[in-house]
């Protein structure tokens, strides 16, 4: 049987698309197609990734200009049909700017670019994106300047009540503490899902946690995504 194909949308400034391509092919056992941002057609709709890096210089706000590109218009249309979509880092910012996910990602609390390994607790394992990750706390790199998750108190409560918060920055043993919050995100939020549970956005980079040993946590993240296919 031929391998399935998932799409990775590429913008001017994306720089995690190749890492993602390698991780997805190797651990999801699929082929990939890179879709340039001005292509209004996304042929392969098994799953769509929006990678990290930058998009259009991140002018105006991170991810804002990318929301109007032809490929994103198609992503928005397909998202309503239930196509699974994952946005990582800049991809998460783009998905919030498209209003496919709640909230906004703004300047880190200390206004520094943060690049380090962080522990992340999986708050909701009852999603197709996370149910096969065998650990409760994973270690993923983060690399961003605008990663502080913000939303209104009402929306925050709704996200909590609907179990839409999927990842939170935590200690190694899964404690959600202010001291483990790298960027000032509300409630240590590192990743959320939409209400229909087909769109995931996260600031940490699982695609950068697949190289060094067989127990790198990115590997179980991508292997787990085979659920969808």
């Amino acid at each position: 049987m031929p391998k399935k194909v998932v799409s990775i949308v590429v913008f001017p400034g994306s720089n995690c698309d190749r890492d993602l391509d390698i991780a997805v092919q190797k651990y999801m056992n699929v082929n990939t197609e890179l879709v340039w941002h001005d292509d209004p057609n996304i042929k392969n709709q098994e799953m769509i990734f929006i990678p990290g890096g930058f998009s259009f210089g991140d002018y105006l706000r991170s991810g804002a200009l990318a929301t109007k590109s032809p490929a994103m218009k198609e992503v928005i249309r397909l998202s309503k049909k239930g196509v699974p979509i994952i946005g990582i880092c800049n991809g998460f910012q783009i998905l919030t700017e498209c209003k496919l996910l709640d909230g906004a990602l703004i300047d880190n609390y200390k206004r520094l670019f943060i690049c380090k390994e962080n522990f992340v607790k999986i708050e909701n394992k009852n999603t197709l994106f996370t149910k096969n990750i065998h650990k409760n706390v994973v270690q993923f790199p983060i690399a961003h300047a605008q990663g502080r998750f913000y939303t209104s108190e009402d929306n925050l409560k709704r996200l909590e009540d609907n179990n839409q918060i999927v990842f939170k920055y935590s200690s190694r043993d899964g404690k959600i503490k202010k001291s483990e919050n790298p960027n000032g995100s509300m409630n240590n939020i590192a990743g959320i899902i939409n209400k229909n549970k087909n769109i995931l956005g996260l600031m940490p980079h699982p695609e950068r946690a697949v190289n060094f040993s067989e127990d790198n946590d990115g590997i179980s993240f991508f292997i787990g995504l085979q659920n969808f296919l």
Partner: protein
Amino acid sequence: MNLRKLLKMIYRVYINFKKGILDPEAEAIKRTIDSMGYKTIKNISKGKFFDIEISSSKNTLGDLEKISSDLLSNPIIENFKIIKK
């Protein structure tokens, strides 16, 4: 002043953070001003503006409102205000 300049239609769109959202850049600027010795500065908020020249007055405000809410600002974190220059 020539007629063309007189007839120019320019609108200014101001964008700023909603109340209660911490802006670390404005905070840092405030701390620097404090360190310069000024004692009366209570609070600083930072924003940005766009000057937009238009070619026809048809639907201008409606279009500008849409552009401002749909792209120039993010309503979750920012307010905008449009004035005619």
